[in-house]
């Protein structure tokens, strides 16, 4: 399937680049965390009220003091029992921060992958058709693309959410269903609207790339030959044009996953996510507690940064190895 030359390029770049290896390790780590969240998490991430006997939330393991509101509304430093239960402490309503961190990976990656996949499905056919037919068809389709590009993706996403609202789709968790993780939530909410919205605001980048490829292939001898023996447009698009555009689309898709993860976290942070189990939402929650419980906002941010770095490093690797010339926008 993959041409030999590409494979050897990929391998050479990978061997040469420490960063590519780091990216792969990080990404596999985040993926495992997302898939096996119910097993890795130590507590039900939605369970509230994990507080010590004085009603204080636990700081991350290792911290000895926490801040609490005293009788007269003043803050007092209170010594806490070393907490063995909660690795990263608990948040302002006593939920286990580590478990929420683990589950947060699910939301980010699900939206990142599903949203990007959807954008590919929308953008690539659009671009191929525009590029292959050229002329007036191309003109009209590219003007549509121009209009889409005039909206910053976050702004368009917000407008779309203004129309469609946010809604989560509860999907049963196979691992919990199989009885592998007792006491974990039986279903995970996928932020459905957000997934569709991120696809709607990012597909145009794929359309542009696919169009460029289709235009360059259109005039190749083998396409002309295929046409001359009476192959239909559909066959030519599928057999010759599409495979040629795959490389840049794959590279762009990798980069776009990073952009979509960031876009999802921004939407969650602004409160338009449809799920409360998301890194962005958790940061928004922690925003009010920066002075007293720094860990609530800090820890989920690390999750975002690590996943986005992982995806970006892989994107760099693919780009260096395959060398397509593409641009994308960040969320």
């Amino acid at each position, binding site marked *: 399937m993959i041409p030999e030359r590409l494979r050897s390029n990929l391998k050479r770049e990978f061997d040469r680049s420490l*960063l590519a290896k780091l990216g792969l390790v990080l990404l596999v780590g985040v993926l495992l965390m997302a898939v096996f969240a119910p097993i890795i998490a130590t507590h039900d991430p939605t369970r509230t009220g994990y507080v010590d006997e004085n009603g204080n939330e636990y700081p991350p393991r290792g911290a000895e003091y926490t801040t609490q509101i005293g009788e007269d509304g003043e803050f007092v430093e209170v010594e806490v029992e070393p907490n063995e239960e909660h690795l990263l402490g608990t948040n302002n309503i006593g939920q286990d921060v580590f478990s929420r961190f683990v589950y947060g990976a699910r939301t980010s990656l699900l939206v990142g992958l599903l949203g990007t996949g959807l954008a590919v499905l929308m953008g690539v056919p659009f671009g191929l058709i525009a590029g292959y037919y050229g002329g007036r068809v191309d003109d009209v389709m590219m*003007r*549509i693309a*121009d*209009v889409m*590009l*005039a*909206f*910053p*993706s*976050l*702004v*368009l996403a*917000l*407008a*779309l*959410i*203004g*129309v469609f*609202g946010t809604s989560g789709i509860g999907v049963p968790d196979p691992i919990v269903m199989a009885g592998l993780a007792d006491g974990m939530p039986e279903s995970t909410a996928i932020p459905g609207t957000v997934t569709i919205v991120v696809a709607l605001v990012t597909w145009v980048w794929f359309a542009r790339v696919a169009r460029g490829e289709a235009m360059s292939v259109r005039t190749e001898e083998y396409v002309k030959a295929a046409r001359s023996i009476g192959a239909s447009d559909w066959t030519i698009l599928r057999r010759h044009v599409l495979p040629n555009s795959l490389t840049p689309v794959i590279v762009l898709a990798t980069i776009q996953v*990073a952009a979509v993860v*960031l876009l999802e*976290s*921004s939407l969650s*942070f*602004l409160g338009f996510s449809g799920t409360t189990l998301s890194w*962005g939402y958790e*940061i928004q929650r*922690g*925003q009010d507690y*920066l*002075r007293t419980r*720094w860990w609530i*906002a*800090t820890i989920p*941010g690390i999750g*975002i*940064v690590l996943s*986005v*770095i992982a995806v*970006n*490093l892989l994107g760099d690797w693919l780009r260096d190895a395959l060398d397509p010339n593409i*641009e994308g*926008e*960040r*969320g």
Partner: protein
Amino acid sequence: MALGKFLVKRLLQGVFVVWGVVTVMFTLRAVSPGDPANLIVGEAADPHLREQVREQYGLNEPIYVQYADYLQGIVVGDFGYSFQSGRQVEAMVIERVPATLELAIAATIIAILIAVPLGVISASRRNEPADYGATMFSLLGISTPNFWLGLMLILLLAVQLGLFPTGRRPVGLAEALTALATTGYATGLVVWLKHIILPAITLGTYFTALITRLTRSGMLDELGKPYVDATEAKGLPAALIRYKHVLRNTMIPIVTVLGLQLGTLIGGAVITETVFSWPGLGDRLIQALNARDWPLMQGIIVFIGISFVLINIVVDALYASLDPRVIDE
């Protein structure tokens, strides 16, 4: 094709794009659920009043008439009235523009001031520690969500160290400058400066990282070109070559990429303004969204679309005058 003709063509395309943006926004509003009269006067309002309000806002007209009215309004700069406040949308947009502009410009300045030297150093000391440092920095910079970065800056620099104020800025640049001019006191300006630094860093970090990357790779490309060796052979000092010729050639693609990334800058401003209560367009957009104030939302987004198109035309024109080959593409 001459530059003038090229510009006319781009302008026409721009008009089309703006029309598209207006149409998309109008469609979104038309398909959005809920009776607009409810948004204006509340669900339990008297039917007569609702009727009257529908009349006033032209909501009883057939949809194509509403569309034509809206388009016509946009042409003469009339964006309609906010559902919530009843004020003219264009006024509500314009009064928020300076703050966003100040933030965006400050962020761009910070980005260029840091990124260009960093990229140059990185490229000229390839594979040395400085280069690795710059590469790691730019990797982190493009991977960090700016709202989180903003909160971390607040946590470290404002809350823990107390170096910067938190909270909404009390003065804008214009006010601060007026005060300086009339009274001779710069206190307002200092306060303004203190308030803008953290948001500007927050918004600027992604661009700093991006420009560092672009400068580095652009410099490396240019340094490998034959003319560098040739000029070096003529005895020009190496530093001069590096900064004058190489850098100038590197900047051209950077300007283009920045034009393309304008959307990212505006999107970033929306969220940065929310984190810092910065009284700009983004802050207002989020308010409008929360209140489902469609005319205001539409107005802000259409305004952003128009600015985006105009700036891109300017960037294209600049680019075309630098590199006339573009025109023929």
